[in-house]
């Protein structure tokens, strides 16, 4: 207890220096917490865009469909499989895919058709709520489509416009019909933004002459506590004879993204903290050299070296604690602020993508315990390392030399 009292007094002696040191630490800690929260937010948004907007957590395909997406490679009885999945506690929805040419006026573009079930689809993905303009498909709409945002620009269409689709139907005939744009999507992925057209599964079946089957079944866990790997195994057991993959296996880039960002946070934090460490080192070293006579006297009257060292450490720890509290409070507040309001990147970038995933133009942070703890613990660690040399210096002082110092 006496140690703490002495330490507090010592810190207060040159309050300007202590203040600058503490504030520099607090500032660095604060920025790192905010940075980590923003990165966390970005990872989660990309993950969300991939999983909840498009892929679903687990997908089932006919064997070989993923390598060679042939319109004939289908899941033969999707309704029965979906019923089994729903009974086992999963949400599931069928999907159909085909490629073709979309034309509006003099513009045309190669497109990918997504045939979805307007009733089951919202249980699996949230894409129906991800609209830039217009509305999502209604269940009884035989000629409505919702299209990707870049595609809308290429074709020069908006909700209400007409689009002609031209493709090759499953029976080899020409698939050709006129559709009306109901809505335009926000950024989802490079592929969907550039070439995605959604229509109801029934409209798709009529157009492509494909009365039965589905190319894909997207599955979402109803019970979030079930692990992804476990869920994948359960789905695979229900879908024997088909290929079952979860989103991590389907999109390894995104799964990797999380590791890449974690490394980036670590490197950034380390770099910033080295700059902080030189400030801490300098400040403590100065305070040790100023007090060299004092330490000499302390040693002379019988204070042990480890006691001197722990005094220096207590002083350092005191400043780090204050800095840490400030950083924690500030980082938490700022992180929460940006979690709610987001940073508008649309001025910087109209659209941007990383590894084929669209980046949301409004960047939200996300504060998690991990985001708060890592920068804080590292700050304490850095301070402890920076204090080693000054503490040793003070502890090893020989009383006679110290008293005659300068």
């Amino acid at each position, binding site marked *: 207890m006496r140690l703490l009292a002495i330490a507090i007094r010592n810190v207060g002696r040159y309050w*300007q220096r202590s203040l600058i040191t503490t504030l520099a630490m607090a500032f660095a800690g604060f920025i790192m917490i905010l940075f980590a929260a923003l990165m966390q937010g970005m990872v989660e948004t990309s993950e969300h865009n991939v999983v909840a907007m498009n892929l679903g957590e687990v997908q089932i395909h006919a064997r070989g469909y993923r390598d060679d997406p042939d319109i004939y490679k289908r899941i033969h009885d999707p309704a029965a499989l979906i019923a089994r999945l729903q009974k086992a506690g999963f949400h599931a929805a069928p999907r159909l895919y085909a490629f073709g040419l979309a034309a509006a006026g*003099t513009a045309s573009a190669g497109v990918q058709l997504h045939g979805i079930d307007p009733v089951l689809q919202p249980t699996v993905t949230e894409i129906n709520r991800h609209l830039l303009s217009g509305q999502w498909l209604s269940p009884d709409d035989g000629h409505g489509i919702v299209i990707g945002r870049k595609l809308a620009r290429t074709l020069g269409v908006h909700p209400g416009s007409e689009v002609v689709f031209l493709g090759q139907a499953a029976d080899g005939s020409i698939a050709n019909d006129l559709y009306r744009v109901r809505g335009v999507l926000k950024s989802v992925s490079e592929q969907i933004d550039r070439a995605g057209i959604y229509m109801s599964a029934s409209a798709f079946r009529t157009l492509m002459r494909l009365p039965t089957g589905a190319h894909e079944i997207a599955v979402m866990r109803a019970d979030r506590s079930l692990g992804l790997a476990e869920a994948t195994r359960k789905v695979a057991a229900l879908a024997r004879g088909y290929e079952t993959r979860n989103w991590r296996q389907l999109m390894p880039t995104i799964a990797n993204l999380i590791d890449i960002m974690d490394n980036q946070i670590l490197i950034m934090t380390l*770099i910033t903290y080295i700059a902080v460490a030189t400030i801490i080192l*300098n400040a403590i070293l100065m305070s040790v050299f100023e007090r060299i006579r004092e330490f000499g006297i302390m040693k002379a009257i019988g204070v042990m070296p480890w006691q001197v060292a722990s005094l220096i450490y207590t002083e350092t720890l005191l400043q780090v604690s204050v800095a840490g509290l400030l950083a924690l409070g500030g980082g938490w507040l700022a992180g929460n602020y940006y979690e709610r309001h987001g940073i508008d990147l649309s001025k910087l970038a109209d659209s941007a*993508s990383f590894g084929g995933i669209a980046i949301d133009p409004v960047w939200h942070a996300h504060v998690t315990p991990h985001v708060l703890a890592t920068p804080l613990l590292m700050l304490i660690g850095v301070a402890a390392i920076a204090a080693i040399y000054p503490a040793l210096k003070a502890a090893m002082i020989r009383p006679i030399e110290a008293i005659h110092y300068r």
Partner: protein
Amino acid sequence: MIRLAWRNLWRNRRRTLITAFSIGFGVLLAVTFTGTGDYAYTNMIDAGASMGYGHVTIEPVGYNRTPTLDKRIGDSAALRADALSQPDVRDAIVRILGQGMFATASNSIGGSFLGVDPASETPAWSLLLRSLVRGNMLRDRDGSGVIIGSKMADHLNLDLGKKLVYTTTDASGEIVSEAARVRGIFHTGINEVDNAFVMLPIDRLRHVLGYRKGEATMVAIMLRDQRRTRRVRDALQHRIGTSVAVLDWRQTQPDLAGIINIDRSSNYISQLLIGLLIAAGILNTLLMSVLERTREFGIMMAVGMSPGQLFRLIMTESFWLACIGLLMGTVITAPWYWYLATYGIDFSGSIGHDYSAGGVLIDPVFHIRLFAESIVAILAGLFTLAILAGLYPAWRAGRIPPVESLKAL
């Protein structure tokens, strides 16, 4: 006074060296950050330019907004000659770019086609040509060949010599189809390119689309140095007039520009942040050394030194500190820079070989390169920072009243 400041600085050698080290560390970081940017952005921009549009593009007015095939430039040869007359232009290539559907008996897929003159395309200016893995480049302008991406070949079950039918809308908006034979297959590693791009001979395509001779979508202009982009664009627009649009890569490839903008801003913010911390370190050092020497300053003022002179003394100290720091920075940065510029750090283990951003493949080997103007900016920036950090301590030193300061301690 300069010598006095120099001597003062070395009275506390350890402190000065630690502070100088933190400035030096700042140099190292600024060089790393800026150098990665200079290198990576140039690489991305050049790679993006070789995907079709070039650094600068001459194209029909309105094509950028809605790229339809009825929009075309009339006399592409004359426009090409205009472009080549500019000093910074390496090459100018006439191309047709459009959207279409590609089909075989078994399947169909949507994508983009690039109409090219085989004689004017070189691997250096064409990513697709550079990435050719099987077969050969198209031979003549009016042939029936086509070059496709590896992913499209998989999807459509195509191989060299097999037939592909492409369908699109022609100059008058009618739907037209034509068959072509696969002559070559490229693999860029970017999914969106490998499954969606094909190269067709330009004269055959003109025939299919109902274009007259010389009509095309664009003249893609390749520059010696991407930093000249804006200058060339403005000069060309001025020369040609407004009958056609002259755009730069930022406008034709907004995705790439977006990624670079975001990355550059976060880069600046990190550098500013580290700069602030370094400034705090310098401030702390100088302020302490001022507070320590209260008595000394008191005596100096008592013997007739003015507050202004004291202010200048401390500012000179911070000037020397900055100089030592920058020198130290140069010494520790040089080997690091040399290593990164020559060998680089290989990140392919963590990001893989086919990681793309803004539609352009990212080099997994981390390299560095500094433009001359960046070096000047870094040195000037850190120097200014050091001088700014000296202001408060210097002002403090001048404010010490002589009598009280002598009483202190």
